């Protein structure tokens, strides 16, 4: 029950912060959606970092390192350190400058203006919303799994023992899961913890309340607070797990004992026994995945909150270092989890549960290797990472709907500023409800779902890059690029059996050798080829229009 009390206290604190920041709300839609462009470098760094680090970073990275080994860090974390900052530098600053000059609030406003096309908004809106929703699902699902794991009991001779709740506390459909023999089972369901569905609902409710009242300012403050929480608690937890797992007198000796037990196939990326390893070309093409930040609509909105272009300097420099601080401990913990010191010591039902759902590796380790107080705080830390992304995404979808659909197509002079804020808030409620309902269906692995979602955004990267740096880009080229990106994403997603095939790759055979590549590489290739070819065969945009976006025309 102690972890549950700490989690409840943390959520209450967060609600208080959100409600407090709402007292600074200036009442305008610009303030609600962009915090009146008042965010300085420290808040910008923390809110951008908090937004990009999700359940994917904490829960997903630990789970994936548990399955695949320490090579996960190179696959996504160190590449993100390079590519994310590259996107902030080459795209973020320029887009902030255009937004500042022409008064954009959303990505779609920029594309409509730059490409002189009203309809491009209608094409992009469903695609962007459709890609943000799986991203939201990752957070909502992971939050439910984490809270349930931390509050659940353990299998005993007469059923579940030490759970936070007795069997029968909640309705049967919330408590029972499917056991290994296919029959309803309490141990395979909520197992005495807060049921996942209820936990996810509470998280959705908390985020909804502080986004509803605090808008972008509340989101930025909450993100900053939550980023500090999950970074500090992550390091504390790492130390505690190392000490307990290693079981030696000193920290260093414990680290050595824990790492010495990592199985060989988790230390290297080549094949070992039955483990096929990671192909070098797949590793290379993974580098395209982080390009997704260039097209995240919620990140675009955060960029626009900056007070000045110079506010970007700190995020650009510190982002890779922050990634390292969060990911290195998570990946190491995941590799330790695969060792006999931990995995080998678990009862077979729990081993099976971990293999089926790697998302719960971190909470299970924390629960088994630390005390309930730290367990409660760490759960708060994981939830902090999850919620600091959910809030921005909810707010962004509300903003897009208000600005790109209602205000754009509705009677502009009849929608007051106050009504704009109201519409955004109502749409946010709707999106939270839809996301929550979708999360009730059985999830795919957080990591796999995340990679598909990021790949979709990354496939639109050539479009935003060309809008800023290529004068020859035409409206038709932009349409072709979006259609190629969307079409190739749908085709490859279906080919992967809708993410059921976790290790799906696009393979090419040359000279009898098969090369594995990440689907994102094919998507980017398709969207770039369509963009360039169609732009070159269609009439270039007029010089007068281009002079608004380029220094020399």
């Amino acid at each position, binding site marked *: 029950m102690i972890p549950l009390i700490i989690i409840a206290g943390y959520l209450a604190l967060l609600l208080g912060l959100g409600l407090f920041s709402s007292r600074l709300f200036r009442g305008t839609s610009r303030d609600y959606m962009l915090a009146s462009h008042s965010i300085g470098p420290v808040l910008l760094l923390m809110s951008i970092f908090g937004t990009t680090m999700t359940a994917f970073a904490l829960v997903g990275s630990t789970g994936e390192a548990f399955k695949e080994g320490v090579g996960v860090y190179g696959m996504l974390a160190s590449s993100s350190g390079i590519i994310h900052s590259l996107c902030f530098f080459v795209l973020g600053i320029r887009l902030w400058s255009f937004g500042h000059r022409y008064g954009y609030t959303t990505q779609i406003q920029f594309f409509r203006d730059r490409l002189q096309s009203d309809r491009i908004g209608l094409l992009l809106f469903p695609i962007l919303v459709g890609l943000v929703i799986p991203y939201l699902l990752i957070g909502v699902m992971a939050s439910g799994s984490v809270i349930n794991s931390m509050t659940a009991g353990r299998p005993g001779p007469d059923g579940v023992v030490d759970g936070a709740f007795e069997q029968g506390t909640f309705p049967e459909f919330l408590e029972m899961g499917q056991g290994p023999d296919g029959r309803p089972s309490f141990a395979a369901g909520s197992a005495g913890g807060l049921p996942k569905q209820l936990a996810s609902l509470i998280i959705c409710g908390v985020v909804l309340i502080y986004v509803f009242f605090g808008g972008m300012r509340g989101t930025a403050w909450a993100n900053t607070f939550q980023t500090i929480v999950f970074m500090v608690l992550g390091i504390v937890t790492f130390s505690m797990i190392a000490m307990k797992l290693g079981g030696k007198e000193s920290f260093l000796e414990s680290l050595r004992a824990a790492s010495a037990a990592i199985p060989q196939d988790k230390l290297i990326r*080549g094949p070992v026994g039955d483990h096929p390893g990671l192909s070098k070309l797949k590793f290379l093409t993974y580098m395209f995945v982080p390009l997704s930040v260039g097209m995240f609509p919620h990140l675009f909105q955060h960029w626009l909150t900056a007070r000045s272009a110079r506010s970007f300097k700190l995020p650009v420099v510190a982002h890779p270092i922050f990634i390292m601080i969060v990911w290195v401990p998570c990946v190491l913990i995941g590799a330790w989890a695969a060792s006999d010191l931990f995995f080998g010591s678990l009862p077979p039902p729990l081993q099976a549960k971990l293999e089926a759902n790697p998302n719960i590796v971190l909470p299970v380790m924390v629960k088994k290797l630390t005390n309930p107080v730290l367990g409660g705080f760490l759960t708060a830390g994981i939830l902090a990472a999850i919620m600091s992304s959910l809030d921005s995404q909810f707010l962004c979808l509300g903003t897009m709907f208000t600005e790109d659909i209602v205000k754009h197509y509705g009677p502009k002079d009849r929608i007051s500023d106050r009504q704009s804020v109201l519409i955004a808030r109502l749409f946010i409620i709707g999106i939270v409800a839809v996301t929550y309902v979708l999360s009730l269906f059985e999830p795919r692995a957080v990591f796999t779902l995340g990679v598909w979602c990021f790949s979709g955004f990354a496939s639109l990267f050539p479009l935003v890059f060309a809008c800023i740096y290529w004068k020859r880009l035409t409206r038709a080229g932009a349409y072709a690029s979006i259609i190629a990106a969307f079409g190739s994403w749908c085709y490859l997603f279906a080919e992967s059996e809708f993410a059921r095939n976790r290790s799906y790759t696009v393979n090419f055979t040359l000279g009898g050798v098969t090369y594995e590549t990440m689907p994102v590489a094919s998507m980017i290739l398709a969207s770039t080829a369509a963009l360039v070819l169609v732009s070159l065969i269609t009439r270039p945009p007029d010089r007068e229009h281009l002079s608004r976006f380029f220094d020399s025309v």
Partner: protein
Amino acid sequence: MKQVVWGLVILLVILHHDVWLWDDPTLVGGFMPITLLYHAGISIAAGITWFLATRYAWPEGLDGDAGIPEADA
């Protein structure tokens, strides 16, 4: 200097692909897998490279950049 900075970014991307460590199970200091340590080093190098980029390759002529205090909100 601008070209040097962009050269460093390209070098980082190349160095990121550490095929020479693919099958190396060494634990540096007895606890840190060498591939993880190497990539943590890449993250630090990225921070340094981007610091140089903000100093020597910062885009000029951006709106609203002049005379705004850098104190945080």
